[in-house]
């Protein structure tokens, strides 16, 4: 029995070994033969290059879209063969960390913004200054530029808009929000909507790092000074922003406390028809379209003294140790910015390509709800990108923790930001 067990264990370990070494598995094997022929025909004697590309974004529904994109790419560049590997988000970053440190990283791969910052500062990413970036949206591009070096290309993008429940606005007799609204207008509307019933709330904006750095920017604040050499977390502008967010919960209570939420998610609260407004990502559209049995629409997110809109993007990067950098750059540039790939991305309803080409982007507008989809693009005029520093994850954890302490009433907004400033200074060394 024990022996049988031991054998089983060994067998499973051997399997593990195979799986670890199995990253070379070809997904696109079928395309090899025709491509070589075409390659000879089109580009003379150019040698065929095989590169590996690893991503998480296609997992859970868009693997076929990605494959279709690759087939199109391969028609255009028959001498480049891409072996695509799609890994689920939850396993992706531990796997990638192991592979990078083990020297078996793919030639090019995808990173989210949190991990991008860490990878870029640790010298494992290649300089992409040679890439043709003419088709890209500049703000998106700048998110992956660290101290003047382009380490990543924006593979996609999404932003945040204010989504509102039209029915609740009608019931409360409040005019629908416009692009010119500020948080003061929101506060007035939220109070009227909250007054509709005990279980109805005006707005929900989570007290987290992600929400905060954007609202701070709307009041002219920021988390770091301009050359990123010092934290400015407890600046007067930031305190004003945090105070506004926390007062909504503790003072006017137009936003529910954690206890009032009762373990419910904010999207669920909106879909249950009990929430007036929610600033959230455009990735909520599909869920809300099927989940809401009331009318809803969007506007550009209101601001404080100025406008600032979230921008989220995943970076496509090239492994610094790769010996096929050129081919890898060709592939990720094409994937992220060619009109063909962009069109396929939009047609599949995957996400938005971070490109300038408005003709392609316009096809996105035709899908409703929301009615006012143009707000998605109007938001692009005031994008803010998260501050890219080496210890990004730690900074964001510290700030989120302090803000939620303030939201529970344990400490004041000012104390929260003072403590966050202190802790970040103690734990993080900026360059």
């Amino acid at each position, binding site marked *: 029995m024990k*022996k049988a067990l*031991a*054998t089983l*264990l*060994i067998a499973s*370990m051997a399997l593990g070994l195979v799986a670890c070494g199995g990253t070379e598995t070809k997904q696109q094997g079928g395309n090899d033969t025709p491509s070589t022929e075409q390659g000879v025909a089109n580009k003379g004697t150019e040698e065929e290059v095989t590169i590996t590309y690893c991503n998480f974004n296609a997992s859970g529904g868009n693997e076929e879209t990605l494959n279709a994109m690759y087939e199109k790419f391969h028609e255009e560049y028959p001498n480049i063969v891409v072996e695509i590997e799609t890994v689920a988000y939850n396993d992706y*970053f*531990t796997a990638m*960390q192991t592979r*990078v*440190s*083990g*020297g078996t990283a793919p030639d090019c791969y995808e990173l989210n913004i949190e991990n991008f910052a*860490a*990878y870029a500062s*640790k*010298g*494992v990413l290649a300089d992409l200054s040679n890439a043709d970036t003419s088709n890209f949206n500049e703000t998106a591009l700048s998110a992956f530029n660290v101290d003047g070096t382009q380490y990543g290309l924006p593979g996609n993008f999404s932003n945040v808009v204010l989504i509102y429940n039209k029915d609740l606005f009608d019931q409360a007799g409040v005019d629908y929000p416009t692009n010119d609204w500020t948080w003061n207008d929101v506060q007035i509307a939220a109070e009227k909507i909250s007054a509709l019933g005990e279980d109805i709330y005006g707005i929900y904006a989570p007290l987290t790092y992600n929400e905060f750095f954007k609202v701070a920017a709307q009041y002219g604040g920021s988390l770091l000074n301009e050359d990123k050499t010092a934290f400015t977390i407890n600046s007067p502008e930031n305190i004003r922003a945090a105070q506004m967010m926390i007062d909504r919960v503790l003072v006017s209570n137009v936003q529910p406390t*954690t*206890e009032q*939420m*009762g*373990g*419910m998610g904010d999207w669920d609260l909106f879909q249950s028809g009990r929430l007036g407004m929610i600033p959230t990502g455009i990735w909520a559209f599909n869920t809300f379209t099927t989940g809401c049995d009331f009318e809803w629409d969007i506007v550009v997110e209101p601001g404080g003294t100025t406008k600032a809109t979230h921008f989220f993007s995943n970076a496509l990067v090239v492994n610094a*140790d790769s010996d096929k950098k050129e081919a890898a750059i060709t592939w990720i540039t094409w994937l992220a910015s060619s009109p063909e790939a962009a069109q396929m991305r939009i047609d599949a309803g995957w996400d938005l390509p971070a490109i300038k080409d408005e003709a392609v982007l316009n096809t996105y507008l035709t899908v409703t709800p929301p009615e006012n989809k143009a707000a998605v693009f109007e938001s692009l005029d005031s994008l803010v990108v998260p501050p890219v520093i080496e*210890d990004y*994850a*730690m900074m964001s*954890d510290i700030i989120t*923790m302090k803000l*939620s*302490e303030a939201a*529970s009433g*344990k400490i004041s907004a000012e104390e929260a930001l003072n403590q966050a400033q202190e802790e970040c200074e103690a734990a993080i060394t900026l360059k």
Partner: protein
Amino acid sequence: MSKQKKKSGKNKLLQALPFMIPSFIGMIVFSFFPVVISIFLSLTDWNGLEKLTVNTIFEHFVGLENYIKILSGSEFWRVLGHTLYYIVLYIPLVFVASMGIALLLNKKKKGTMVFRVMYYIPVLTSWVAASLIWKWVLSPKYGIFNQILAILGISGPGWLTSEVWAMPGIVLASVWKDMGFFGLFLLSGLQAIDPTYYEAARVDGANKFVTFFKVTLPLVTPSIFFCLIMALINAFQLFPQVQIMTEGGPNGATQVMVERIYTYGFSYFKMGYASAYSWLLFVIIFVLTMIQMRLQNGWVHYES
């Protein structure tokens, strides 16, 4: 004679070797090597991303800095406090629950087998699934737990959303999941008790209560001892339920050792620091287990 014995022992080892080597290789590659390497890594500021070679350790060598930083900071002690809070709640609860199960299942009645299986099912459930279920069970407004309390006229706490009640919530889930496991060990301990002891007790006129405390409990102490060591080690390695149910929150109230190790290693890219953390955890568990081993003579009765 001793020579002969030694020789035959050697022969047996030779025979066993081919069977052992494969699993040995697995042990060495997947357990021994990483353990040894992590000692060296704990003396570096390696970030877990740069390619790992022998040189890495020299290039990033920082001596005992990681250990000093951890022990002189407040976080380690706070997190250790959370673990102790968990232990204080978890150990008594899990023992009462699993002893109850063991006593119930020790009766020879119809359907006992079915119940034995039922109580063991949580043990076999993956922590991910179990944590998700418990997250729902403990949801303050919509969870079944608070609804049952409401029927009894008690207004339930915020559980995982409350700094005070989050850890007890995790304890509840852990007790539910582990009681079948420890129950099974205690049951085997109960069944190993010689029935003549009970007969003697009955003849002497002992009632059920006295029999339990004077006969059953002392004779089952070896099983209890084993369970106690296992439970304590498990408690210090508390992780999946925390990671899924609260992610260390709210406001860091359920941050525990392994959760910190994971966060530092894979989220903050401080692999050296995380390695030092895990060696400190090892020392704590090792010392506590040694103390338990020493103390066992005082209360564990092995039937001779």
